[in-house]
């Protein structure tokens, strides 16, 4: 299968959500490029009974409702980019993003549960939804908070021409 074909294939074939499926889902709220603050982006397109993201959010920015199979929706107006939902999501399906952190650099904060961890200032290889290398990024912060229960949140800056494409980083070689 050619690379370009794989990117069009659906979630139930490749394992990763395709951009078409994401854009068709109510969950996906990529913050517009002129938004100043970080905001949560959820990539959870299936109806499964699950709502810790809604429960974790301190401002009520995430809505699922009484039927907990409802797909979560982020209200960007209420989201403060606190990252509580990033660690709370059992599916590791949420990250924070901002288009302009500094000039030409975007910002992403994503969940990461591997060892070894990089250090602040390290260069890391960032990947897309299929795990393919996209570009290098710079580690801003490696957050390991007790309330996040062993889910590290990686804060990384990267060239904003890859704003939408980057979702995570390659695991580092084993220590």
């Amino acid at each position, binding site marked *: 299968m050619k690379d370009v074909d794989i990117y069009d294939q659906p979630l139930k074939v490749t394992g990763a959500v395709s951009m078409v499926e994401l854009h068709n889902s109510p969950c996906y709220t990529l913050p517009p490029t002129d938004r100043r603050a970080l905001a949560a982006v959820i990539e959870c397109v299936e109806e499964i009974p699950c709502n810790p993201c809604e429960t974790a959010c301190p401002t009520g920015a995430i809505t699922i409702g009484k039927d907990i199979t409802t797909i979560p929706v982020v209200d960007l107006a209420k989201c403060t980019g606190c990252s509580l939902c990033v660690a709370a999501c059992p599916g590791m399906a949420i990250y924070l993003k901002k288009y302009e952190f500094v000039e030409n650099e975007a910002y992403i904060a994503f969940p990461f*549960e591997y*060892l070894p961890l990089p250090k602040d200032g390290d260069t890391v290889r960032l990947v897309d939804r299929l795990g393919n290398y996209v570009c290098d990024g710079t580690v801003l912060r490696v957050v390991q908070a007790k309330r996040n229960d062993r889910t590290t949140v990686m804060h990384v800056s990267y060239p904003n021409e890859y704003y939408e494409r980057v979702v995570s980083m390659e695991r580092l070689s084993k*220590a």
Partner: protein
Amino acid sequence: MSYRIVDHPVLGPLEESEMVTITVDGKKMQARKGEMIAAVLLASGTSYFRKTVKVHEPRGIYCGIGRCTDCTMIVNGIPNIRTCITAVEDGMVIETQIGYGEWKKGDTHA
């Protein structure tokens, strides 16, 4: 190659353990006290635990929880011991089992 998971993002670092001395196919080795025999052997890179009766095919673990009996070895002279659910003890003698083993009257370790 070490198969031991020394540090883990959720389980944390491997804790220190009291060690015991066991003998495997004549060779003495150190093992973490109370660990399952199969885990000790996998950690040291052992490929197989026994060989079958007729064609001597190698066998290792399969179910890992004491149900399938693929992992059986001779322990302290008693054959057909499920190593995935049997813990090591100091002085234990473990041998690769070739073919059938027979339990004699009085064998109590199952």
